[in-house]
């Protein structure tokens, strides 16, 4: 184990080159629905148990199945109502299991990015060849079923190895050059996109994907009341909108069809979406669109500023 994997250099938030999003927007806003498939009886990983109870673990499996059977349609319609195209963090086996959901999202021109094969198969313990094969499978599956060249990655169940980011960038390059493997959602160190150092030297970035606003963290880990989640989303937005006039920020709401789409939580989520999209200087976009815009317009300036400040 190492004390730091050195994906990024220290780079203070103050006094950075300003990002201005299209049409002068202060905040780039994206919603990342995690559309996941959890196996009822997955193989055991030596470092993490998939379910707390012996098979069959109805409680955890059931609510996640609810997300696909019931919740997906609710969230999709709600996002549509507010002009939001989802950027899906996808358990790619869902392409085979539940192709209806994939079709609905394709019809709406949503983005698909890789969240591994299943959310019950962890990266822990994989050697490089295995993780390479898993990531390759995931990008190829997305391409086969959607025609999209996968731009982003969020490791399955946030399970990482030392080489996860390197491998994702490399597999993207092997398959589709600079069209795939350009951003990661696995780092939570910033409210702006920032360059990430990967082994093949590719232009590769971290996209803000807020764990603090992630509905599963909010509801299942921090056990927040639904109406309070709505308040948190609005406050989070207010501050990023205010600061965005000087810095240019990204706000992401990572969601799950089995959390935010439950009947007792929809109202608070809808109020927050209505509030956020009701502001004029918000660029409602997908993960890839934000990443590409940043790479095209601000990545080089960021690298230069980071280098300059390492010496200061």
């Amino acid at each position: 184990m190492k004390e730091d994997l050195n994906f990024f250099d220290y780079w203070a938030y103050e006094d950075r080159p300003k990002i201005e999003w299209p049409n002068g927007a202060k905040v780039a806003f994206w919603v990342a629905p995690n559309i996941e498939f959890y196996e009822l009886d997955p193989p055991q990983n030596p470092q993490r148990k998939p379910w707390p109870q012996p098979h069959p673990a109805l409680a955890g499996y059931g609510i996640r199945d609810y997300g696909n059977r019931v919740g997906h349609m609710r969230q999709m319609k709600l996002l549509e109502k507010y002009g939001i195209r989802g950027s899906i963090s996808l358990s790619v086996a869902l392409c085979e299991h539940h192709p209806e959901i994939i079709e609905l999202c394709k019809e709406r021109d949503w983005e698909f990015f890789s969240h591994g094969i299943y959310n019950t198969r962890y990266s822990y313990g994989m050697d490089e060849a295995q993780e390479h094969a898993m990531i390759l499978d995931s990008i190829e599956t997305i391409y086969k079923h959607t025609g999209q060249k996968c731009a982003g990655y969020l490791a399955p169940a946030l399970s990482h190895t030392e080489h996860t980011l390197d491998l994702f960038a490399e597999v993207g390059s092997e398959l589709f050059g600079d069209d795939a493997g350009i951003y990661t959602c696995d780092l939570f160190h910033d409210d702006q996109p920032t360059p990430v150092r990967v082994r093949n030297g590719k232009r590769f970035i971290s996209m803000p994907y807020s764990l603090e606003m992630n509905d599963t963290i909010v509801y299942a880990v921090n056990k927040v009341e639904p109406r309070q989640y709505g308040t948190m989303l609005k406050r989070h937005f207010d501050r990023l909108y205010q600061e965005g006039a000087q810095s240019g920020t990204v706000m992401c709401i990572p969601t799950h069809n089995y959390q935010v789409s439950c009947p007792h939580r929809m109202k608070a989520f809808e109020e927050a979406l209505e509030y956020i999209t009701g502001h004029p200087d918000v660029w409602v976009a997908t993960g890839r669109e934000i990443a590409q815009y940043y790479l095209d317009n601000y990545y080089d300036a960021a690298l230069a500023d980071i280098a300059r400040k390492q010496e200061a």
Partner: protein
Amino acid sequence: MALDKSYLEYPKRAYGHDHDFYEWSMLTDRPKVIWPEGKKLAVWINTTLEFYPLNQRNIPFKTPNGMTMPYPDLRHFSLREYGNRVGIFRLLEAYKKFGITSTFAINTHLAEKNPYLLNRLLKEEGEILCHGWNMDHLHYGGQDLEEERALVKKSVDRLRELSGQPVRGWLSPAKNQSENTMMLLAENGIDYCCDWINDDMPYEFKTPASNLHVMPLSTEIEDQFVLGNNLHSEDSWAQQVIDAFDYLLAEANEQGGRLFALNLHPWLVGQPHRIGCVEKVLAHIAASDDIWQANTGDILDSFKGQS
């Protein structure tokens, strides 16, 4: 070091679920259901009555909401008993006040121990469903088949005998099951099980014995989960239940029949400081003209009559 190669093999990666228990379908793709009298939202209020033995065995895991202190844990034992002697009567009053028919899920052991309680419940309109033997007899993966078969049979037979009701429904203690539980329920003539919570409508579940139905009893809005597990306030719980009700009713009006299922534990919401929030929720539900408030078995029969 690497993982075993089977960790990157996916034998069940194909259309549908990764098991054969029930068919995959999205709720919005199914035929519309209309409840009796043209109502859109079926409302199932479920009251769960439980016995937590003091000499808890914790097989295969610690009984949820059971004893936590060294033996004899009189504190939790008596707090749970509170529901059966005091809390339930507050709930019955509230049901009467708002014209609610509740289904009663009861541990058979409790029904046997307290004939007064069972007989009192039988005076209500509500259907009795079996909540297993007691809270320290969990059904679990890896359980010996014959042991579980005997446990299901004893629980169902004895409750039918004591109640004189057909006992068509089942709710496992802690909603926990083995891989055989559903088959064993079917063997014992159980029509529906409330443990699976993956839908907002009933659906058919296949077993090697015969098929039965799942009546999903929502965990997400039940008192124990919101108050006991999430530690939300009573006011927030009432708000969440009302928000869920309003949302499902609106969805039902737009898309066709839905099921609103609310599970209540007298030991928890029967407390003096909580019963007011139950009344607030029931008042909100009872004020709607668009609902069909019914026993679980009747809701199932209406559903089956249309499918």
